């Protein structure tokens, strides 16, 4: 059996969070900013449910693949019994966690920007809308630190394992 070199690992780097800004400065101060409507196409009861897998620390990929994460496998999520307990294996680490209902639901909003070009005025104003595209009611939470999977084979190959403190890219949610 071929042992694949893990391409992702978990590390515990401090993560910085960005300020959320709904109303960025408008290029022209005197231009009226529209209020932002929150739209919903799904209606009550039909809102598609999204899922969250939450763990401590930051998942880091090996430098060779970190620029093309798309489609990359992060790990294996298992439900070993009929209880709501889960394991998540990332690289040579195993996390143990459980499925917990959220105290308050989370809505997934998607920001839509419409361009309105006005007559008599060549200015283009963008009108922002938020659309509800999903709801989250549960998460699978791994709140413990990962346990190393010790196996002689894995141990030998663990030198291929990369954990590094790449500064987390801050995602600025500017509207």
């Amino acid at each position, binding site marked *: 059996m071929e042992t694949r070199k893990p391409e992702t690992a978990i590390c515990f780097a401090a*993560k910085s969070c960005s300020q*959320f800004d*709904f109303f960025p400065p408008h290029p022209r101060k005197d231009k009226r900013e529209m209020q932002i409507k929150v739209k919903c196409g799904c209606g009550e009861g039909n809102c598609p*449910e999204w899922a*969250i897998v939450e763990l401590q620390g930051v998942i880091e990929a090996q430098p060779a693949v970190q620029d093309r994460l798309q*489609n990359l496998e992060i790990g294996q999520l298992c*439900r070993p019994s009929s209880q709501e307990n889960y394991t998540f294996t990332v690289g040579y680490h195993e996390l143990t966690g459980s499925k917990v209902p*959220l105290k308050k639901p989370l809505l997934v*909003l998607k920001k839509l920007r419409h361009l309105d070009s006005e007559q008599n005025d060549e200015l283009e104003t963008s009108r922002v809308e938020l659309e509800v595209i999903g709801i989250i009611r549960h*998460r699978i939470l791994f709140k413990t630190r990962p346990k190393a999977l010790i196996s002689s084979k894995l141990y030998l190959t663990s030198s291929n394992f990369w954990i590094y403190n790449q500064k987390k890219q801050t995602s600025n949610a500017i509207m």
Partner: protein
Amino acid sequence: MQQPQPGCEGGAEAVLNFQPNSSISIAYHPFFGPHNDLILLELDEKLLPDVLHQRVTLRGQPDEDAVLCTRSKTYAVKFVGTSNSVLLIPPSDQSTVCEKSQDFDEIIENDHNKKVVASVIKVVPGNLELVEVAPRLDKLKMLLSENLFGFDDVSEMEDLDGMEKNVKSLYTWDDLIEKVQASDDELRSGLQTLSAVEIDGYWRIVDEKYMDGILNMLLQNSVLNDWSLNALIEDEVVGVLELDGFPRKIALHCLEVYGIRVDQDVGRSPWRLDEMRVCVHIARGILRGGKMKMENFMAEWIRKIPEGMQANFDMLEGQVLTEKLGIETWVHSFSVSSLPCAPAERFSALFRERSKWEWKDLQPYIRDLSVPGLSSEGLLLKYTRRTQPTLDAEPIFSAR
């Protein structure tokens, strides 16, 4: 090296409906990225129907923090960051995310042995939270005070060529909901508290001197025409005031501000002038010139009150303050409606007026304050220092 199958095959459903004794592969989505346009908003279950029925909006100008408004309430929007890795997994058929059509059904149909994959579209840095706040109505007052409706407006209304009407500092309802961070209900009640009136589509506060003029004219006419102040016929009153040069809309507004319909359920019911509102208005007019000795003020007030009405100094709670200078008591205008609505600004205005307040004086100036999640005792604790020289003495409130 074998890459996991690209795609959304399992999606959130696979994670949420996880069968015991099974496993799924968690992978980065084919469109994994920062996706700054995807935002998570935490909210109370009770607000869900409002959002799902499209009754909420975010309001604020570019230089203000956004608030979320339902029909009746206002919420501050706070970003709460997390240091955990929160992997967001959309449902498999999320066409808004997987924009390119990919035929996964076939893959799932044909290959049951293939691992189910749930794909992570983004790592979420945190979510938005809502905190109920008081509406920001001070701004409403400020906007409407920029351009009061007064005598100039009336002469302008008479100029029929006034099509180039100066609309500077005039605000329609739609302008106000863009500019004021308050829900529709709160904005409506704010406009009512300010006695604002919609004239030609613009919400205006009528200049107090102008209101003086029209109320005096109404009272004079009631004497001349032998009207009862408890049963004013709307058409008659408005008609006569129009002949005196007041716009119909303002004449009606005068009845709304100083009167009550005798029978609320009957549309064309007569109006009764409200004793308290009329008396307070007259008192304010008298004190506009500055402070007065109590007895002079009372004499003038009682003289000016229309017949059949009784002036009572208690009516002026929250409108005037008295102070003892030597053996004389003086009274001056200090109206709660002229003070800011935001608690911190309100208390600082109060302590500028007086450094020490007795409860009976202070209470009328703070009873209208409402801060979600804070009782009036909480407000006092937060913004004042309470001293009580002896156990049976009245407590005194001073600035913190």
